[in-house]
């Protein structure tokens, strides 16, 4: 099956800033693809290039082989949500939708249908300026699906939503995918998208880091368990572990992670060395940590919430399982 979106060697420079650099990836039909990367990694710029809003410095982005601006009736092919604030504040919600529907030569019945779909029928006559962030986001989504498009592009749609809003959004996205639509949804938090996406495209500093399925990413994440130890004797612990050829990775003031270790192995080691332990827990490498690791966040940032001068010998790279 042809991919719904093909991005090939896409690049964009803003002066000296390489916002997007030689980026290539595919988005498959009928699947939700998470477009993930930290803030400033070029997600928004990429999505805007896809939609012909920003001119690429080089490379191409096509929908079934056709660039956005050459699509016949583009809103019937691609729907997009880009920002939560792109409404005229004194225009009524229904009028906003009608203006888009008229421009796209869509029947007025579509306006009623999408208002119904996102649950805004009752407030359709209200001015958008009086809407909450969540309502605006739903109006954006309504606008995006006006033309009943085969592809949906959503840029950080969860930003600023409350937990109910995020739950609603997940249901909405899964429902859209169940209709066979290809959905590309960006986020700087994998955890936000974990339950929603099928595939992931991970970018960092404008470059592709990894394109894979969420299932594969999860199995990578699950493959590296370890033990988390809180102890006042970090230095001695490191020395003892070094004796076994195992490294401890410091993650807090008095906390280390021993990658690859099991409780059955580490417990006796600690008892034998008579090291005081405040806390001993299983460390499951969570998806978010894999994601952070992939997007080049240096290890020291893991402990950034409680930084301290390292009292122990600097931790060497962790043991791999």
């Amino acid at each position, binding site marked *: 099956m042809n991919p719904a979106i093909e991005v090939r060697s896409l690049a964009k420079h803003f002066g000296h800033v390489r916002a997007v650099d030689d980026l290539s990836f595919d988005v498959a039909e009928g699947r939700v693809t998470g477009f993930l990367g930290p803030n400033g990694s070029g997600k*928004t*710029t990429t999505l*805007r290039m896809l*939609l*012909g*809003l*920003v*001119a690429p410095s080089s490379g191409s982005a096509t929908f079934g082989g056709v660039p*956005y*601006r050459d*699509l016949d009736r*583009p*809103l019937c092919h691609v729907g*997009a949500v*880009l*920002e939560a*604030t*792109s*409404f*005229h*504040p*004194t*225009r*009524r919600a229904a*009028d906003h939708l*009608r*203006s*888009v529907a*008229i*421009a*796209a*030569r869509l029947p007025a019945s579509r306006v009623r249908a999408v208002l119904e779909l996102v649950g805004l029928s009752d407030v359709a006559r209200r001015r958008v300026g009086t809407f909450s962030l969540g309502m605006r986001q739903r109006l954006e989504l309504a*606008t995006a699906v006006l033309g009943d498009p085969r592809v949906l592009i959503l840029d950080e749609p969860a930003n600023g939503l409350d937990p109910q809003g995020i739950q609603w959004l997940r249901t909405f996205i899964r429902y859209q995918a169940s209709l066979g639509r290809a959905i590309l949804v960006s986020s700087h938090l994998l955890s936000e998208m974990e339950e929603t996406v099928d595939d992931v495209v991970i970018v960092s500093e404008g470059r592709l880091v990894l394109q894979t399925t969420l299932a594969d990413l999860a199995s990578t994440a699950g493959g590296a368990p370890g033990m988390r130890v809180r102890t006042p004797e970090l230095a001695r612990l490191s020395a003892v572990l070094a004796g076994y050829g195992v490294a401890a990775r410091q993650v807090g003031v008095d906390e280390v992670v021993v990658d690859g270790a099991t409780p059955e192995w580490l417990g006796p080691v600690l008892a034998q060395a008579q090291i005081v332990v405040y806390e001993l827990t299983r460390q499951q490498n969570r998806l978010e940590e894999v994601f952070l690791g992939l997007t080049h966040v240096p290890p020291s940032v893991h402990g950034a919430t409680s930084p301290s001068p390292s009292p122990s010998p600097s931790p060497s790279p962790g043991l791999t399982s």
Partner: protein
Amino acid sequence: MTALVRAEWLKLRTTAAPWVLAGLAAVVTALLVVVIFRTQGGTVAPSSGNGPPTFVGSGVPQTAQQLRNLAASCYECDLFALLIGVVCVTADFRHKTVTAAFLASPRRWRLIGAKLLTAALVGAALAVALLAGTLLGGGLALDAEGGSFAALARQVPAVAPGVVLVFALFAVLGVGVGSLLTNQVAAIIVSLGWFLVLEGILIALVHGAARWVPSGAAEAAADVTRGQGHLYGLFTWWQGALLLLLYGAVFAAAGSAVVARRDVT
């Protein structure tokens, strides 16, 4: 294109700014009607002998020229048509609705084309509304004060085409200005600064500039004096209309070129 024009018209009429501008134009027109009514009454008889000229007749506009001036008093409000054109473009950039507009019409020159057409139609409609209001209000006042409603009505066909044309072209010029200066506040300040201050200074300083500036071209095109424009240093009506069209075309082309290239981030 029709669809885009209808969408732009919906967008214009579902926000306050164009209505406020049209309302202001109506108020200013009403004031101008009163001023012309009060200052252009009667006729001037040539002075007999060494005496000064004397006013004769009743104190209301009655010569053909006076009645034309009265009928066309709204013509000074062409600036409001220009501002409606400015708002038609800059509101989209100010509120980022331009993203939605470009998504629906990724070939941007088509969107600008639709805005030019919409603004021209709205400018023309504003002129028609103001002319009609002037005829009604001024005509009733004339009737009440001993003048003739019918005489005023007879002069309307003489001035209406020119005024409608000028309003339409000014709105087009406004779309061009708004596309070049997408910052709404900047575009409005520059427009007002030019038409209310700088143009006057230029005319005062540079001999013969009056006919070349947009207002001079508009005054010629409106042809309220019926061919007497050259007495005021103006072009003939068709030269004025052509010049104004040229201004509109140059600004619109430059504006579309700028908007077409711009990254919308």
